[in-house]
């Protein structure tokens, strides 16, 4: 009895929460065939939102890729008082609810910014929010690989007269590239679907600071569920594609997991 009941319950639970909703998403997106899907996705506001989402996610993934490498390098190779605290701070964006993250950024970089740096209702605000939530992916993907890196090769190169820039370019970066790429991929996937941290600081101005998740949200509020489903399907496909790529990358280069 128990052998059947347990798995049956698990499958039911998963079906109610994940499988059926996913099926409904695709079904509603293509409710009147390909044309209804294409109409929803090719609306100017949808195109603008998707374009903004993809470009800012790409920019943040690239920037945090470099920043993550620097931070990981400092955490692995450098030593200073309070390093373990800095190491703990990296995980804060994972643990902090996104709406709180949005509020923190709005406090410091909004209309009442103590630095007089107001990025609220601008695209810079989106970049700040995405950089915040994706930071742990970028650091934690590179950190373990950097820690495992064989330093003898670097020392050999240096003793043979290679400059530190050349050691970085020819020895360190090639070994870290797959892990950096995997981290950037995770950051990109996370950024594409981000909503909570962006919503307060971006102001959701159509054609200017409205990201895809915000556009889907406002479609749902105006009961345009078919269109919301269509744009959602685009986000789901992008996420699956990126994760598939990362999986292949991990397998090919045997990269450890991020966290």
């Amino acid at each position: 009895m128990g052998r059947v009941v347990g798995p049956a319950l698990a499958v039911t639970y998963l079906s109610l929460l994940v499988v059926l909703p996913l099926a409904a998403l695709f079904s509603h997106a293509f409710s009147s065939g390909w044309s209804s899907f294409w109409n929803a996705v090719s609306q100017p506001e949808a195109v603008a939102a998707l374009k903004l989402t993809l470009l800012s996610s790409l920019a943040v993934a690239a920037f945090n890729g470099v920043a993550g490498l620097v931070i990981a390098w400092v955490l692995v190779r450098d030593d200073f008082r309070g390093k373990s605290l800095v190491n703990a701070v990296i995980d804060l964006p994972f643990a902090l609810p996104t709406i709180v993250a949005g509020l923190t950024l709005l406090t410091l970089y909004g209309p009442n910014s103590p630095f007089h740096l107001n990025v609220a209702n601008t695209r810079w605000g989106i970049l700040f929010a995405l950089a915040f939530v994706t930071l742990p992916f970028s650091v934690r993907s590179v950190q373990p690989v950097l820690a495992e890196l064989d330093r003898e090769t670097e020392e050999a190169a240096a003793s043979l007269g290679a400059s530190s820039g050349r050691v970085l370019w020819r020895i360190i970066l090639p070994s870290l590239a797959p892990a950096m790429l995997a981290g950037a991929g995770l950051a990109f996937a996370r950024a594409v679907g981000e909503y909570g941290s962006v919503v307060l600081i971006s102001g959701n101005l159509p054609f200017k600071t409205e990201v895809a998740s915000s556009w889907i949200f406002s479609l749902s509020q105006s009961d345009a569920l078919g269109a919301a489903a269509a744009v959602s399907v685009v986000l789901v496909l992008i996420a699956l594609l990126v994760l598939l790529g990362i999986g292949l990358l991990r397998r090919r280069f045997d990269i450890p997991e991020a966290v």
Partner: protein
Amino acid sequence: MTGRWRLPLRLAALTYLGFLVALPVGSVFYRAFQHGFGAAWHAISSPDAVHALWLTFLVALIAVPLDTVFGVGVALILSRHRFPGAWLLDAFVDLPLAVSPVVVGIALVLVYGKSGWFGNWLAGHGITIIFSLPGIVMASATVALPYVVREVLPVLQEIGTDQEQAAATLGASPFTVFRRITLPSIRRSLAYGVTLTTARVIGEFGAVAVVSGLVAGKTETLTLFIQDGVENLNLVAAYAGAVVLALIALAVLAVVGAGRRGPTDAPTKERGTPRWRSRSDPSPSDSEVPLLSTT
């Protein structure tokens, strides 16, 4: 790569972290108590705030046990049985981590909402899911679904089935085997999984925003209460709510962070390789998305 570059790099890393993470988070605490502890207390003890706190607590009270039982069950299935379609089960469990929480919310509305697949049937039986408590619970349970599985599965694979089989041979019932053998060995990873699930459920915003209907004092959880506070310029309330959530996040980091550095049930490196894959594939990397990603 030493000497000359050490200090500039350290400075760059600390500056970036300071301005992106440490200062913003610190400033929320400052703003919350800027007008004194009394003002913050007054804001968080208003009827709407208390209701939001209570609703958040209630949702966690329902969603976390459901996800926990499901998580342990699926981890047992994936680690103890080989069957066709196991990879699909594994992929579906991970899916909520990969998609936007707003999409999770929409997908639920499309099944359980008024014009959704089950809309007519539910309405006919007088059941409301979307824009009420069941919807909020379902959205929260969905986004937090993967955490227990991802924590417990690698440990179950690590410990194997020798002891369980020995106990069963000696006449122990399946339940006794689970309670006396399996449960003690996954205790720690289960605690992490439950902690992460709770954190995610309490902090969820996007999925809940779609399904809740956003009625203050009715269907407003703490995260929605914060957004409401910001939009209606009740900033003291928003900051007070944010401090509550930030403290919970710090507590979670302390629990999981401290535990991860200490002794664990099993090496955490081998996280989440389902049995059906671990046999043929030497690479132990599978759960593509880091675990603590609240959205």
